[in-house]
C-alpha cells in the first residue's frame, strides 16, 4: 500500500533534505536519517516527512526547538507538526476535487458579470417563489411540502430577440 503513495525516490528526498535543511540544523536530518534504515515499517513515512519538511522550509523547521538536540521524540513531534500543517490545506483541496471535478461557482461568476441588475427580480415577489422559500412565514421556515420550484420559460424566442 505504501508503494501507492506518490513519492520521490529516497535519494531525492535525502538530497533535498541535505541541500535545504541540513546545513541549518544538522541535528534534525541526522536524527531522521538514523531512523530511516532502523525501522522498516515506518521508514517510508519518515522519508515522506523529510520530503515535506524540506519542501516547507519557511515553516517552523528553520527554528530549532529548545532542547531538541538530545531528544528524538521532540524532533519527531516537530516533523509531525509540519506534516500536519502542510497536509490539512492540501488534503482539503484534494478532497474537494475528489467530490467533483466540476466548478459551477466559476460558471456562476461568469454569468453574474453579464447579467443586468434587477432584470427578472419580479420573480422573487411572486407568491410561488415566496411560498417555496418560506419567506414571511408562509410555511414556517420553508417546512412545507413544496421543496421544488420549477421555473419554466418557452423555447424558441430567445437571446436573439432584442440583442
Amino acid at each position: 500500500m505504501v508503494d501507492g503513495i506518490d513519492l520521490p525516490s529516497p535519494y531525492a528526498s535525502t538530497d533535498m533534505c541535505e541541500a535545504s535543511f541540513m546545513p541549518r540544523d544538522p541535528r534534525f536530518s541526522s536524527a531522521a536519517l538514523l531512523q530511516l534504515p532502523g525501522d522498516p515499517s515506518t521508514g517510508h513515512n519518515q522519508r515522506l516527512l523529510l520530503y515535506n519538511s524540506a519542501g516547507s522550509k519557511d515553516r517552523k523547521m528553520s527554528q530549532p526547538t529548545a532542547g531538541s538536540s538530545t531528544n528524538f521524540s521532540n524532533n519527531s513531534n516537530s516533523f509531525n507538526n509540519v506534516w500536519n500543517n502542510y497536509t490539512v490545506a492540501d488534503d482539503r483541496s484534494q478532497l474537494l476535487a475528489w467530490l467533483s471535478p466540476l466548478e459551477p461557482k466559476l460558471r456562476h461568476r461568469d454569468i453574474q458579470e453579464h447579467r443586468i441588475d434587477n432584470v427578472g427580480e419580479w420573480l422573487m415577489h411572486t407568491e410561488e417563489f415566496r411560498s417555496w422559500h418560506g419567506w414571511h412565514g408562509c410555511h414556517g421556515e420553508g417546512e412545507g411540502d413544496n421543496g421544488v420550484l420549477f421555473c419554466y420559460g418557452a423555447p424558441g424566442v430567445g437571446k436573439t430577440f432584442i440583442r
Partner: protein
Amino acid sequence: MLTSHDVSSLVVDKLCDQEREQNTAVTCFYFDFAARKEHSVTNMLGSLLKQIVGGMAKVPGEISRAFQEQRMAIGGRGLRLPDIVKMLQTITSSLRTFVCIDALDECAPVHRVKLLDSLRQILEKSPRTRICIIGRPHIRAEVEKRLAGRVISVSVGTSRDDITEYIRVRLGEDGTPDAMDESLAADIMEKIPENVSEMYVGQGHRESFPTLFC
C-alpha cells in the same frame, strides 16, 4: 434577453444575500448541452456537495473518512452515486440547503431521470431542502412526475419593466453615441417595450409573457 442563466444566477445571488446571516448553504449548477458528457449525475451532485463542504469550516467526518478510505484503493476510487446521495442526505439534514439547477432540459434525458430520482431521495430525508429548477416547459411534466407532490411551477418570462431596464442599460452602452439624440432614445424607450408587449398580449399574460427565454 432574459435567459435561464439570468434567472438562475439572480435566484442564487438573492438567496446568498438573504441567507448570509443564517446557517444555510446556497449551491448552484448550470447544465450545458455542450458539456453533456462531463455533466454526469455523479459529477453534478458531487459538485453540490463540494460547494456545501467548501463553505464549511470543518469537513464532516463521514466525508473525510470516505475520502481517506478510497485512497487505500489502488489509484484511488471515485464516488458512486448512492454514496453521494447518502452524503447529501446527511449534510442537508443538518444544514438548510438551497439548490439552484439551471437549464435542466440540457441535461441528457438518461441522466435527468437519475438526477430527479436522487433529488427526490434527498428531499425525502431532508424536507427543508429547497430546490429551484429552471428549464424549458417540455420537461415540466417529467419534473412534476418524478418529484410528485413537491413541485410548484411558475412561468418565467420577461416583464415590461425588464425590457425597459434592459434597453436603458444597452442605450447607455451604445458604442456610437453620435448617432443617438435624446428624442430618438426616448422614442426607443417608449416604442420597443410597447410593441414587444403587444406581440404577446394574445397569450393571456398581463404583466409578463413566457418568452425571451433561452
